[in-house]
């Protein structure tokens, strides 16, 4: 008589490891990429081609655009998506090319710190932009 079960109770072995981080990151690259096509190309079109292009960009132009929540949201999503997309892309590149664990670690620290700084500064500017200060 054996104590062993003839048939295991759970037919499948539980997962060895359950982190969907790389899956999510892969998916994010594609979804943010699609969004960036619209956001970045739209941005480039408005800034560089539409009536007069870069030559008409001045304080008043920026002030006018950011007085609208639509353009605030546009620029905010562009900032966040591009920064995280680019940052995550660079994370992949660092993973690929860094040979030593210490190099990898410090490159990533630099990357993440720069991402946080740029995101914080950009978000701060978009939300606190004051169109009433005199443009001299």
């Amino acid at each position, binding site marked *: 008589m054996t104590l062993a079960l*003839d*048939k*295991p109770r759970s*037919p*499948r*072995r539980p*997962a*060895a*490891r*359950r*982190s*969907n*981080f*790389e*899956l999510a*990151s*892969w*998916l994010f690259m594609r979804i943010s990429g699609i969004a960036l096509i619209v956001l970045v190309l739209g941005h480039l079109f408005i800034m560089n081609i539409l009536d007069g292009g870069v030559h008409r960009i001045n304080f008043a132009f920026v002030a006018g655009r950011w007085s609208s929540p639509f353009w605030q949201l546009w620029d905010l999503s562009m900032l966040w998506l591009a920064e995280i997309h680019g940052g995550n892309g660079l994370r992949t590149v660092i*993973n*690929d*090319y860094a040979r030593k664990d210490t190099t990898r670690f410090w490159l990533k620290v630099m990357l993440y710190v720069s991402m946080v700084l740029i995101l914080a500064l950009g978000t701060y500017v978009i939300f606190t932009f004051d169109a009433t200060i005199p443009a001299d």
Partner: protein
Amino acid sequence: MTATVSEEKAGSRGDLPPVPDGAVTVTLKILRFNAEVDSEPRWESFNVPALPTDRVLNLLHYVKWYVDGTLTFRRSCAHGICGSDAMQINGVNRLGCKVLVKDLMSGGGKPTTITVAPIKGLPVHKDLLVDMEPFMEAFKAVKPFLITYGNEPTRERIQSAHDRERFDDTTKCILCACCTTSCPVFWNEGSYFGPAAIVNAHRFIFDSRDEGAEERLDILNDAEGVWRCRTTFNCTDACPRGIQVTKAIQEVKRALLFRR
């Protein structure tokens, strides 16, 4: 037989054979390495009489048998079955026994040079002989065998032709490593499972008789799994069996995205 110690290199089978009619002399440039002498791999060129219908493997044999018996490489079947003679031929991963000289000839009567180097990303032991262990380790890690739970069936495990078709392509793998050693991700990060391991996981994941798909998918969902693939198609291009390797990898990604 008396062993002759000589400084001169000699082939393992003695004197040069007669040059066959219609042979052209090609330069065979081989990236050689002998850990006892060389600190780095070095190129060495040999002039070899070749027929257009010869395979690159024949040229290597010529060098080994009649010119320099120390040349080291793997080969077994010589017919594209065993997967032991993967090498970089003119910079691309191929089986030495499947590439014909006529496809490498430079046109217009210009002299032909064929370069042969070991596959990239695995430690070189000697000349074209590389350490396959890291490759085999990744292969074993995806559990490339039938996994079932529950009672043994009393008869054969039946499968419909349609279900068999699902993974037909990936059954063709001969584990030659052409794909994995052509993958830029593998070159940079040897811990990536690599396309060959994923192909062999695919072969079981999509087998209706197998019950280990979840386990294998979890393994390939890992940081060194399928998400590392950048869809560059080097592997598909390199596979001597014509397996749609990148497609198989995408199918595993899709299974991970849409499981449950």
